[in-house]
């Protein structure tokens, strides 16, 4: 509101500037004081020596208020000098002139100092507060002091009574103070009004000026006998002044006051108007005039100030409203921004919540000092709380952990903290409210402050499914491992696509005479080398089934002969199939094989047996075809020999023929004997049968010079048996004994009826030799098929067949042997056997 010194000016310069401006101001003040003092003399109404109005008092007050504090004294001096000068110029004697000047100055000085003290310098009077202060302090209290000085001077010089002088002095100064000081203070407003006022305002000011002047003229244009109008008219001025004050402010009010006072004083001086009525009560009239003018001035000033206050209040209100609106706007904007931010926050919170939910994940913040844990996300679900967890303490959470892990989890964390670790991962089990067991995974970070652990933040998620999968995987692996171990087949796994690394299971290692875990690949750097044959043709490593599978990506099936480094030969049959990685590339292969060596031998043996049977059938057919003519020839030779006229020579020849015929007959009979055909059991005379077999082996026995001892018991009963099979038993034993004994060895055959046990009569056939004997470990296995110690000549089937036949006949075999001493086989056969058709069938097949 007030102009303030330009801040950019240096204080020194400002002071200099102010000093020069203040000097001008002091000069103007002194001049104005002088001018208004002299001017006021024109309004002195004779015979009074005092002016009814004293504008100089207002000039002085305003002047002293508008100069800096330091310039007050010089200003007073200047005014005093001007006042004395003026009085002297008017012809007033020097002494009263000085006295009056001092009195004139006193009120202004006291008032200005008091107002400065209370309101500061550069006061404006468009505020009610300032106006009231001006009225009370300036025009009231200070003025009364000035009036005291003035009245003292006036009374002292005898111009008038002290009382009258005081009142008149007081009122004239009051008018001056109240009219001139505000007018001067608001002078800038007049210039602004003149520059900026709109035509409507000009017109209004013109109208109000005309009304005001007309009213004054009406009140103060008539003489003392002009009727009642002169008493009424002055009061009409008040609403007009209020109008001016309300519409044109302090400037309008003070200007109107000045104009009004001028006109009133002019009229009154000319004996016109209400205040010019007679002089008998001069002082009263005079004071009445002063009071009227002062009151009018006060009214208009107060109204203007109130108006200005209101105006300012309204402006202030409008400003406040604007500020409020702006504040509201800002608040709205802030609220909007916050709401948007909150929405964003809610969005991100929602996203986080959904992420946690989708991942079945939770997070936590563990305050290590208070040992409390804040939870986020799915923690409650992960720890299996049906509702909210009862307690935020870490211990309550540890209590949730499975008893087997409960100690470990906090202990581990404590240990990590002691180590100063900043991160850790953990796995543990928790038991839910519903009793189920779940695996949780934790990953966390520990925060330290000045070396002290403060917080631990981390996440949890459910590992149960993964654990279950791991367990299933482990079980599958265990099953596979067990399967590999127990499978009665050889399983090899090639671990690389070149088949350079092949390991086998237990069976496979047994086959290959390899150690557990040994790389047996024929393509790799194997420790031992095996040779492989297919149908007699040796294979290169590339041609082997597993290698072929890997190279061609196909399943391969087939049979293979393998010769071990030890020379052992086995035949294996199986299949290999490639293994593929996730992209379908062959990464290795698996081969499973079984040992078919025995089956292969059986097949060959069966083939051999079949051949023998065919030969046997042929021999039987031939024998039959031969036997009939042989009978005829035998008969013929017999008949021919009956001729008594035969020469001795011819008879000898016929005897030879007869002997040779018997030999032929014997041979054919033996040949037939080995062919069982569809034999049925019949009574078999065992000694006769054994003799027949021994006859057959006679050449062999002779060539090895083996002595045969026959010990046949008395009354050996015929056994019910298949003669051909019994013959086979016997010939197998005899043949084995012949092989076992050395040149000049001994073979004994004993046939004895056995004592009757539980109603079954039996015949025992014992075959003993003094041969090489059988080792105890071999003795256990002699009846197994294909077991042989005679690698080159044995089929390994002989004793197995014997055992089969004996068993089928309801008999038993006992074998005793001692290496280097010899072997004894005893066959016990029942006299009457009950050979079932099924057994027969089996028997014929085994042969």
């Amino acid at each position: 509101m007030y102009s303030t010194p330009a801040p950019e000016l240096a204080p020194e310069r400002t002071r200099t500037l102010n000093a020069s401006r203040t000097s001008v101001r002091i000069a103007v003040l002194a001049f104005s004081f002088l001018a208004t003092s002299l001017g006021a003399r024109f309004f002195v109404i004779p015979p009074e020596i005092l002016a009814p109005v004293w504008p100089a008092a207002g000039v002085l007050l305003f002047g002293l208020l508008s100069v800096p504090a330091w310039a007050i004294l010089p200003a007073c001096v200047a005014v005093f000098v001007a006042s004395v000068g003026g009085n002297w110029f008017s012809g007033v004697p020097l002494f009263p002139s000085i006295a009056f000047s001092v009195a004139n100055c006193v009120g202004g000085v006291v008032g200005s100092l008091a107002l400065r003290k209370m309101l500061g310098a550069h006061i404006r009077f468009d505020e009610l507060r300032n106006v009231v202060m001006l009225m009370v302090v300036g025009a009231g209290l200070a003025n009364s002091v000035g009036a005291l000085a003035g009245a003292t001077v006036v009374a002292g010089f005898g111009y008038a009574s002290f009382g009258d002088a005081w009142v008149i002095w007081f009122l004239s100064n009051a008018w001056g103070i109240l009219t001139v000081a505000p007018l001067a203070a608001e002078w800038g407003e007049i210039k602004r009004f003149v520059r900026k006022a709109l035509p409507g305002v000009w017109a209004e000011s013109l109208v109000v000026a005309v009304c005001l002047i007309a009213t004054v003229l009406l009140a103060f244009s008539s003489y003392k006998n002009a009727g009642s109008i002169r008493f009424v008219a002055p009061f009409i001025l008040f609403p007009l002044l209020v109008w001016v004050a309300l519409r044109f402010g302090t400037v309008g009010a003070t200007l109107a006051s000045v104009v009004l006072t001028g006109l009133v004083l002019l009229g009154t001086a000319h004996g016109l108007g209400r205040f010019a009525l007679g002089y008998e009560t001069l002082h009263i009239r005079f004071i009445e005039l002063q009071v009227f003018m002062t009151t009018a001035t006060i009214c208009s000033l107060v109204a203007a100030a109130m108006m200005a206050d209101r105006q300012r209040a309204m402006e202030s209100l409008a400003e406040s409203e604007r500020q409020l609106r702006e504040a509201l706007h800002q608040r709205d904007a802030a609220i909007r921004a916050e709401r948007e931010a909150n929405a964003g926050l809610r969005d991100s919170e929602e996203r986080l919540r959904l992420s946690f939910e989708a991942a079945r994940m939770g997070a936590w913040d563990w305050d290590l000092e208070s040992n409390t844990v804040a939870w986020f996300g799915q923690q409650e679900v992960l720890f299996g709380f049906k509702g909210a967890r009862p307690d935020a303490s870490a211990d309550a959470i540890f209590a949730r952990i499975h008893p087997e892990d409960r100690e470990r989890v906090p202990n581990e964390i404590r240990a990590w903290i002691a180590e100063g670790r900043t991160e850790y991962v953990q796995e543990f089990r928790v038991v839910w409210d519903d009793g189920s067991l779940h695996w949780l995974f934790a990953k966390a970070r520990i925060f330290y402050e000045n070396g002290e652990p403060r917080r631990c933040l981390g996440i949890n998620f459910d590992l149960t499914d993964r654990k279950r999968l791991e367990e299933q995987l482990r079980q599958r692996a265990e099953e596979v491992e067990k399967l590999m171990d127990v499978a009665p087949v050889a399983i090899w796994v090639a671990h690389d696509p070149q088949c350079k690394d092949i390991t086998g299971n237990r069976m496979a290692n047994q086959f290959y005479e390899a150690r557990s875990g040994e790389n047996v690949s024929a393509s790799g750097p194997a420790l031992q080398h095996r040779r492989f044959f297919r149908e007699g043709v040796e294979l290169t490593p590339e041609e082997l089934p597993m290698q072929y599978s890997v190279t061609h990506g196909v399943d391969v099936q087939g049979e293979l002969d393998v010769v071990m480094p030890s020379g052992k030969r086995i035949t294996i049959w199986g299949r290999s199939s490639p293994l593929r990685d996730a992209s379908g590339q062959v990464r290795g292969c698996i081969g499973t094989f079984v040992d078919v060596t025995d089956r292969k031998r059986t097949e060959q043996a069966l083939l051999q047996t079949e051949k023998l049977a065919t030969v046997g059938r042929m021999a039987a057919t031939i024998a039959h075809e031969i036997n009939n003519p042989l009978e005829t020839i035998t008969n013929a030779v017999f008949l021919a020999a009956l001729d008594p006229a035969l020469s001795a020579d011819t008879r000898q020849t016929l005897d030879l023929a007869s002997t040779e015929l018997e030999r032929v007959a014997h041979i054919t009979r033996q040949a037939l004997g080995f062919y069982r055909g569809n034999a049925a059991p019949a009574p078999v005379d065992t000694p006769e049968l054994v003799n027949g077999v021994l006859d057959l082996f006679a050449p062999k026995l002779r060539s090895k010079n083996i002595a045969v001892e026959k010990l046949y018991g008395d009354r050996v009963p015929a056994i019910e048996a298949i003669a051909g099979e019994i013959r086979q038993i016997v010939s197998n034993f005899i043949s084995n004994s012949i092989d076992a004994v050395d040149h000049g060895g001994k073979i004994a055959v004993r046939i004895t009826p056995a004592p009757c046990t539980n109603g079954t009569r039996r015949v025992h056939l014992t075959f003993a030799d003094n041969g090489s004997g059988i080792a105890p470990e071999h003795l256990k296995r002699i009846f197994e098929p294909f077991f042989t110690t005679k690698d080159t000549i044995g089929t390994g089937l002989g004793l197995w067949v014997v055992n089969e036949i004996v068993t089928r006949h309801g008999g038993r075999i006992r074998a005793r042997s001692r290496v280097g001493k010899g072997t004894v086989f005893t066959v016990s056969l029942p006299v009457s056997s009950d050979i079932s058709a099924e057994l027969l069938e089996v028997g014929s097949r085994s042969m």
Partner: protein
Amino acid sequence: MSKRILVVDDEPALADTLVKIMRYAGYEPTAVYDAREALNFISTHQPALVICDVVMPIMNGIELAIRIRSSNPNCRVLLLSGHAATHDLLASARQQGYTFEILAKPVPPRELLARISSMLDNNCAAAAV
């Protein structure tokens, strides 16, 4: 005791040599060459013994022997066979309650004569075999 013997064999040469041997030994042999003729002869001449080949066309020796047993219980039967595989025939005969002994060809003539002699001398022996 009649010394009438019937020799049945589908090979006439064999049958004829046997007849000669029997006759040399003092019996009264006759040869026929199939089972039908044999049955005719037995019904008309009531021989004491029939020496019979097993493998023959039309009717084999064992069938013939069974027929003889049922029609002429007193007639002895001796079976000869050049074939070893005659167990089935014997087994089926045994199932019907008949037991026969078969001699394998070639039978030395002296053995044959010894057997005939013992069979004809000992009536009970036939039943025992």
